[in-house]
């Protein structure tokens, strides 16, 4: 992102009900969507590196304003709240994307959104927005590895723990992996100080509002809760297994393979450890070693 004119990072921040409520009933309390906070964290990091402006953008009813307040408390330069009248269902990605597209500034360099979370539904807002704007979209981003005039080098989470490095030209839409950053804690005093900062409010016309309408919310069925309290009479190994896996079995020492949790006398444990290291190639097998 270039510094002249100062590029803008738009970060989409959402407010979600603390607890689900039936349709027609206003949720008691709203909180900032955790994924949005992660996206905001990345936005602030990029801003610190590139001197880009950060603008927070939220779509939603009055309660959504807290997302903007939070962003301002975190240090965003400005905030825009598009008042949609009523909360758009999380599944209505197209409507949300459409409203976002209309609200973006002309000179946006980058749009950051939180990735898929239960609160944000399918995570389709980002790709939908990118499609509407004709921009590239990159999802599951966990870090920005580089910034240059060309664009961004991003690290994506891939299946089975792999990582993919991509380069994307700006402007672009980036979905941030919700586990990528631990959002900075914003103290109550900082949040209260942000109440005095201005938020630009924009309204929507009725036709622009949701394509989907919430009909019902079914609460989760009660499930027995697994309490990880292992039987204190069990051995340390069994207690550890219970805590990790929800069930304890004592493996006979003889049938233990090269891994697992074993409980053995010290001498036998030492021999088993040596054998394990030999199997894994950390130690030369004793026959080879003796052969020179």
């Amino acid at each position, binding site marked *: 992102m270039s510094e002249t004119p100062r590029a803008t990072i738009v970060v989409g921040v959402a407010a979600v009900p*603390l*607890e689900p409520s039936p349709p027609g009933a206003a949720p008691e*309390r709203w*909180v900032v969507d955790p994924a949005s906070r992660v996206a905001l964290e990345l936005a602030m990091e990029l801003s610190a590196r590139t001197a880009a402006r950060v603008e927070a953008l939220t779509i939603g009813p009055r309660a959504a304003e807290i997302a903007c307040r939070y962003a301002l408390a975190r240090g965003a330069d400005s905030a825009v709240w598009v008042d949609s009248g009523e909360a758009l269902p999380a599944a209505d990605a197209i409507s949300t994307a459409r409203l976002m597209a209309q609200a973006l500034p002309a000179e946006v360099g980058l749009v950051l959104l939180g990735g898929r979370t239960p609160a944000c539904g399918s995570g389709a807002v980002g790709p939908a927005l990118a499609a509407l704007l004709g921009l590239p979209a990159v999802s599951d981003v966990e870090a920005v590895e580089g910034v240059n005039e060309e664009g961004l080098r991003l690290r994506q989470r891939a299946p089975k723990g792999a990582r993919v490095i991509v380069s994307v030209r700006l402007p672009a839409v980036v979905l941030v992996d919700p586990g990528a950053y*631990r959002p*900075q*804690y*914003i*103290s*109550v*005093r*900082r*949040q*209260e100080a942000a109440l005095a900062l201005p938020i630009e409010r924009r309204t929507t016309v009725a036709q622009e509002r949701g394509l989907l309408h919430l009909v019902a919310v079914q609460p989760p069925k009660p499930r027995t809760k697994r*309490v990880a*309290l292992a039987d*204190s009479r069990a051995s340390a190994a069994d207690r550890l297994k219970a805590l990790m896996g929800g069930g304890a079995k004592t493996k006979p020492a003889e049938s233990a393979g090269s891994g697992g949790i074993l409980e053995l006398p010290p001498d036998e444990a030492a021999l088993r450890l040596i054998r394990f290291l030999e199997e894994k190639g950390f130690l030369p097998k004793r026959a080879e070693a003796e052969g020179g």
Partner: protein
Amino acid sequence: MALRDGLLVFTLALGLFGVWNLLAFLLRLRRVFRQVRPTNRFDRLGERVRSVLVHALGHRRMFRDRIAGLLHLFIFSGFLVLFLDIVETIGEPFGFSIGPVLAAVVDSFVLLVLSGIALAVWQRRVKRPARFEGSDEHDAYRILGLITVIMLGIILHDSFFPFVAGPWFHVSDPSAGGHYLGHALSRVWQRLGWDRGAAAVIGYTLGYAMDIGTVLGFLSYLPRSKHLHILLAVPNIFFRRLSPESGSLWAPEGTPPIRTFADLHWKDVLDLFTCTECGRCQDVCPAWQNRRVLSPKMLILELRDALRQEMASGRALATTGPLPGGVVSPEELWDCTTCGACQEACPVFIEHVPKIVGMRAALVEEGRLAGNAQDALESWLAYGNSFQKPRRQRGHWTEALDFPIPDARREPVDVLWFVGDFASFDPGVARSTRLTAEILHRADVHFGLLYEGESNSGNDALAMGEFGLFELLRRDNLAAVQDLHYQRIMTTDPHSLRALRQEYRRGGLKGPVLHYSQLFLELVEGGILRPKPLGRVATYHDPCYLARWSEITDVPRRLLHHLGIELREMEHHGRNTFCCGAGGGKIFIDGGGTGDRPAERRMREAVAVGVETFVVACPKDVVMFTAAAASLGLEGRMHVVDLAELLAEALGMETGVTLALMNR
């Protein structure tokens, strides 16, 4: 004449130089005081004077370590009395004398001081207490050495004065018979032939220089030394926080986050320069014992040394720092459990905890938190509890009861029970919560709850430095109780107790606030509850927030006595209790440390006194010590029991049914 004049010039020159150095330091200190925050410590003057008499002259806290107390008393009293020597030594060339009686007193105190020094050296070289780790040993030995020089100087010049009094000063020596130490040495000089001429003059002058020269030289050395406490200890004790304000984590004037030295108040600054580096605070610190980074002593010394540098630089204090994350590491600050043991142990009443809390607040405002602290804070903000449970579930524990508990928001009650988070939500504590309710019901106490109107008291948020969150929670709770009708408030949680009695009271909370042990004792001693003696042996763990911050140690013990418990005290008990490790938000912050966790250490103390029942009076203690017993393999051998459970058992109430349901 020449000798007298020479000594006078020597004394005046050294004296003026020493006074000038000391005054220069005090002026720099005054400049510092003008740049820091005010605090009112000029109230209740009578109590403050009494405090000085008890703790400065009486050495009350010093004597918790008998040997250290004794040696310090010897040296301290010696210093007081030996002021007579200074006056006499300077005045005797001019004919002044204190007389033989006082002279003998002086010599006796010389012996006392030398004994004290010998004890001090023995303590440092032989006993080697761990609390001296990190202290400036060179400074300590220098001071002991200088004091020794003074004492030997006294004996020396007293031994030669009879030989120079007449020939050189043309005065008599009325004190001669009193200075028995010098008198004994005089005979040696006579045998050696050093009782006349140049030898006598040199001997006397040397002794004078050793005595008066060192005393006056001390004035220049004091500002650089921990020995400055000889000037500052008395005012520091005088200006200490008095009870009940000593239980507050927050100054009445409001406590800002401490980012720079300018954010301290003047008593904080006084604290830094009064520290004697004795290490008693370090010795009792649960974090230090757990081999974490924090040492309360080193924290004070880090601040002191940094402030000395700033004073030397002449910079404005508001431009200094940062203190948290600069002079003091975040790890040190987050290691603290705010148990207050350091403050309780400090003989000169340094206030460690408010400084730590203030610096934590600065980190919090910057979003720099430790471990899971953030989750706890955000849970309090969103849910009003640390368990991330919806507010409406706060009263769910009452469903296990076979009687309803009145909603204090809807009807007047006598006792408003502020339950607290752990007592409401933690399954391991719910049993004792339920039993508390059943006991009160049996006693026909008309008590009620706030149900979902109650939020966390905010004590831990405050201790973690989230002042804004504390203010919010306090506001919510005060609003919830504002128009209610109750006579008293009771809580089972010592952390909430402290906050309710201190910061909530200042916020306008009405009515006395009791710990449940106090209400139980009242019911038992009033004959309303008649427990049968249990005939059991047990130990009782004093919760820090009950014993130190709220000064309640006797009540639970009297209650246990009524229950027929033979109490065996652990090594650390009463106000000297040892922390479980949960306070100050630490129950939410990840562990660390390579030593025994505080709760495990405490369990070992209990094992050492040969008991199988470990009585607690705090919900967090139930959690911490149950886990500690399990991790040490003591389950089945050490039973962690809440006061309510014991009382219920003594009342013949059913206590066993829910044991299995609670998965304990």
